[in-house]
């Protein structure tokens, strides 16, 4: 495993703590608590127990035989994070962070959410551990992910609509950070991706690394070999980082992160921070971001709410610059095709986010030989998106 971030939270120039002074002590406290929990056998045993008996881990690594045959190239395996409790990988992180909040004696947690999966996962972990939970969500996302709003409310969380800016994930994060600045004494802010100020990118990566660790064990057992490619979608980048990080030192395993190409990079309506962005500071860390010539943050677009974000985790920026990973884009239209292909060939309806990874695999697999292996992170299931997809497909015909 790599040794980064360094003690200041930097991934070779990316990352850091670009936050108001009010939060600096809280970040130090969080880092200390996390590092001590990491070494605490009881904490780790409790988390492991929750991940297995409550979240349903390990998730299967499934050989997608019909999809493989249809594409006629590399062997395709799906890491089934969609089978986690709540329907996405987000629960891996929220169980860890809510357990940490409890350990720090914070009775209240807040979260930001885009697609609503992180909000649902935070509300779930909070309900199970008896903490008060409030979730910030942009009104545009509330509209397109209504089902998840209702789920959060059923789980006893309060969903706070965010009207500012583009009314999506970026603005929900702003509002969550403002809440945290105000209520830092009794509140833990559960950031849902490998973004934000240090130590968040490290903590979320570590909690999500269970994905890659299981994958490594499973593929060695099934194939007696490591995969040639790991493919995952990247919004903030938590499911991708969770899959990639444990393979960091396996230099023959290639990492491909798939960003939201929206209506196409040339239209400007996309959310591809790594492919089309520049270095900048957003939400507490230095990373690739989408911004205008004056350093104002751009309004992004993606059919998938969970990828609709103008920043990305700093460790992905580091991977990009050192060429450890390759980042590509998939448009809305291609993602919809990926969505349908997986449903038809494998009987699995993926989240629109994960459909981006599927769509790229559809392009990649036929170019590879039959003895090569691709593992795709199927980060979430698509029930939440069925309404959106139905609407788009209807309009298209």
């Amino acid at each position: 495993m790599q040794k980064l971030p360094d003690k200041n939270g930097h991934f070779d120039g990316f990352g850091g703590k670009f936050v108001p002074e009010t939060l600096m002590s809280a970040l130090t406290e969080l880092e200390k608590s996390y590092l001590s929990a990491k070494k605490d056998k009881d904490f780790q045993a409790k988390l492991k127990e929750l991940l297995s008996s409550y979240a349903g881990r390990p998730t299967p690594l499934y050989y997608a035989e019909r999809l493989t045959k249809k594409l006629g190239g590399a062997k395709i395996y799906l890491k089934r994070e969609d089978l986690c409790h709540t329907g996405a990988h987000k629960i891996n992180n929220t169980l860890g962070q809510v357990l940490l909040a409890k350990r720090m004696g914070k009775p209240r947690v807040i979260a930001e959410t885009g697609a609503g999966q992180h909000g649902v996962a935070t509300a779930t972990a909070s309900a199970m551990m008896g903490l008060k939970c409030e979730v910030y969500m942009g009104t545009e996302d509330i509209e397109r992910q209504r089902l998840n709003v209702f789920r959060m409310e059923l789980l006893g969380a309060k969903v706070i609509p965010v009207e500012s800016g583009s009314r999506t994930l970026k603005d929900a994060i702003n509002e969550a950070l403002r809440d945290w600045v105000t209520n830092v004494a009794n509140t833990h802010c559960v950031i849902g991706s490998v973004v934000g100020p240090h130590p968040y990118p490290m903590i979320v990566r570590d909690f999500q690394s269970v994905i890659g660790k299981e994958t490594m064990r499973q593929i060695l057992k099934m194939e007696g070999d490591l995969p040639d490619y790991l493919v995952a979608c990247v919004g903030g980048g938590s499911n991708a980082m969770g899959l990639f990080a444990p393979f960091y030192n396996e230099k023959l395993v290639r990492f491909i992160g798939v960003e939201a190409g929206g209506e196409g990079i040339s239209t400007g309506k996309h959310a591809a921070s790594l492919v089309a962005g520049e270095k900048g500071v957003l939400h507490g860390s230095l990373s690739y971001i989408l911004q205008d010539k004056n350093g104002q943050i751009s309004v992004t677009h993606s059919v998938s709410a969970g990828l609709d974000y103008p920043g990305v985790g700093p460790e992905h920026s580091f991977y990009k610059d050192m060429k450890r990973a390759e980042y590509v884009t998939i448009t809305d239209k291609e993602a919809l095709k990926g969505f349908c292909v997986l449903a038809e060939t494998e009987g699995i309806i993926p989240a629109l986010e994960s459909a981006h990874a599927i769509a790229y695999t559809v392009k990649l697999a036929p170019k590879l030989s039959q003895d090569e292996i691709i593992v795709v992170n199927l980060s979430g299931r698509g029930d939440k998106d069925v309404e959106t997809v139905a609407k788009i497909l209807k309009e298209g015909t």
Partner: protein
Amino acid sequence: MSLKNVFARKKSVFIPYITCGDPSLEKTEELITTIESAGADIIELGVPFSDPIADGPIIQAAYNRALKQEVSLERVIKIVEKQRKKVKIPIILLSYYNPIYKYGIERFVSSAKDIGISAVVIPDLPPEEAREIMVHSEKKDFSIIFFLAPTSTDKRIKFIGSQPAPFIYYVSITGITGVRDSLSSHLKERLQRIKALCKKPVAVGFGISNPSQAEEVAKIADGVIVGSAIVDIIGKNLSNPTKPVFDLVSSIASCVHRVKCSTKVRLK
């Protein structure tokens, strides 16, 4: 006059804040001279930003009004250059880090210094991340002002107190900018702690909303910063903010300035 000299005078320092381009850059030019004539000792000018995480609804709205007219750091620097010759009091900028990063850190420090801006306040840049801008600032004799907050530990108070800046910006409340009904009950105690641990002048901002609160703060701090209350008045008088801003700034200035230095010295 330098910031250091302003704080060395025997009265409390009053620092009003406005956002550049709110409601327009022309009005900002006018408001800068208005604010000086109303008795300000230093003026703080905000550069609008799309994602201001330390600001409440009043300043967010001002940023949005300015961004609608595409006000940028580049344009802010141009109007300050124009106004600099007309006003005698020091001008400081407030900007989130990304517009500065995008403009170019070295280029920013040198443009700001060349046109006579005394310092910059960056709400999302703690000293830990400021090494690059500090290197350029020290070369150019330009200042970066850092914050202290109610949550700052003794260790951080000493660390921030040791930075080369003419004063410290103390955030009076655990929270974001905005108008508040009352001052924090711990303010005096916290300021005494800061004074015991570092020798720098301390200006207090966030939540100071009216002349009487400003006067109370002036008794225990070296400077008083008022932002949201003034921005709120601008927001309510968009077509002609000059007179209401003059009235508010001059009433706060007279309350701040009537605090005698002898009272302050005793409290320290």
